[in-house]
């Protein structure tokens, strides 16, 4: 009997000590399995994100194919230098995010935290530029649908198909959904930053940092296509 108890205790000890560190959920065999599952889940989520945005990209290309002249004319109202600045902001933040993940990987949480902070600063910078762009559009009445030029020219003519309000509809929908992702991203980055500060991550466990990083890179990825399509189209 005593041997059985010993064996049990031994197994228990071995279980909680080696195979199950504090960050390992009880339903996973080992940290690698947990990480693999988390990352696969993240990639599947990113796949759904891509599919969601693909619908908007399709709408954009459809509009372009139907009203090429209108798109040509009205994309000039977007400030390509502000758009370019935002592209640089997002690429830089993507770089600092990758650096944050790398620092977490090699077990340097302090460096990771400061890189995350820089990422957040650039993300906020992106939203500030976006704010100025949006307020300029609203001021000039460059808005979707019936809102177009309502307070500038006293509303649009009804039955005006393929007009600029269509372009600005697509513009606001695409950059708006992307901007929403940036805002959510800022929240996630801040959450990860706090966890890093609290010492939740180590070289053995940093999956949340990596997954938020993947999300943030996807946000950058979508902007890489949005920028030339909306701001630079010719």
């Amino acid at each position, binding site marked *: 009997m005593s041997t059985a108890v010993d064996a049990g205790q031994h197994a228990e000890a071995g279980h909680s000590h080696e195979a199950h560190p504090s960050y390992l959920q009880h339903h996973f*065999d*080992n*940290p*690698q399995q947990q*990480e*693999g599952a988390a*990352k*696969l889940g993240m*990639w*599947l989520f*990113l*796949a759904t994100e*891509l*599919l969601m945005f*693909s*619908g908007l990209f*399709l709408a954009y*290309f*459809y509009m372009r*194919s139907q009203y090429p002249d209108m798109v040509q004319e009205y994309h000039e109202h977007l400030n*390509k230098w502000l758009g*370019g600045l935002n*592209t*640089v902001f997002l*690429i*830089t933040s*993507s*770089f600092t*995010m*990758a*650096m944050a993940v*790398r620092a977490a*990987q*090699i077990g340097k949480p302090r460096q990771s935290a400061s890189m995350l902070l820089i990422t957040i600063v650039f993300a906020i910078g992106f939203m500030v530029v976006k704010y100025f762009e949006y307020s300029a559009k609203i001021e000039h009445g460059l808005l979707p649908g019936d809102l177009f030029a309502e307070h500038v020219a006293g509303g649009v003519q*009804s*039955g005006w198909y393929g007009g600029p309000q269509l372009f600005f509809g697509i513009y606001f929908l695409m950059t708006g959904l992307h901007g929403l992702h940036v805002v959510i991203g800022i929240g996630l980055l801040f959450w990860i930053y706090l966890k890093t500060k609290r010492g939740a991550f180590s070289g*053995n466990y940093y999956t949340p940092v990596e997954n938020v*990083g*993947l999300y943030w*890179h*996807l946000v*950058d*990825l979508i902007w*890489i*296509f949005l*920028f*030339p*399509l909306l701001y*630079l*189209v*010719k």
Partner: protein
Amino acid sequence: MAKGYIRGREAAGVHETHHHVMPLRTYIGVFGALLVLTVLTVLVSEADLGSAALPVAMVVATIKAGFVIGFFMHLKYDTRFHSFVFFGTLLFVGIFFLITFLDINTRGMITKEWGNTAWVLDHGVNVPPEPVPHEGEAHEGGDAAAHEAAEAKPADEAKPAADEAKPAADEAKPAADEAKPAADEAAPAADEAKPAADEAAPAADEAAPAEEAKPADEAAPEGEGAP
């Protein structure tokens, strides 16, 4: 303990993580490349490339995306299954785009070659003749001037009605293309009827409640016929 497999090969030990730490200069190199390509896209957009502008911009964006996915997102060094998920998604996006544009690009062909067939299937063999606008008619002066004020209102009502018929016509797909020009003509027809005799009024009124493509269609010749 279960054996771990990494990229199809058995791992030395599952506790040896497959974390691939990339050297710092790789990240910096990728970052630099992304910035250079961003400047390049902006410069290329300044040059007038005509129809080549979009493909060039897309190629540059795709190269940038490749850098982000491959290095920042580690897909190049990651499990192949993640690549499968990602490129599988892109494949379906491609199918989505391909089929949609196949549809869009062949629609004109269908209306030209089979448009009449579709009309016959929906409306029987009696294809209505193309309405011909009668210009210079119905200007008889005299009592027409007296009616002008009275006619102005219903005639104006006919116009938005014709506009309303347009989106409705879109729903009645096969008939849409036939109905649109007809609905458009309803408006000028109603205008012509303006100085005309009393008979024009019921015709314009009929155009007003037009909610489907068909009634709008019928209203057109009537509004015109009113002398």
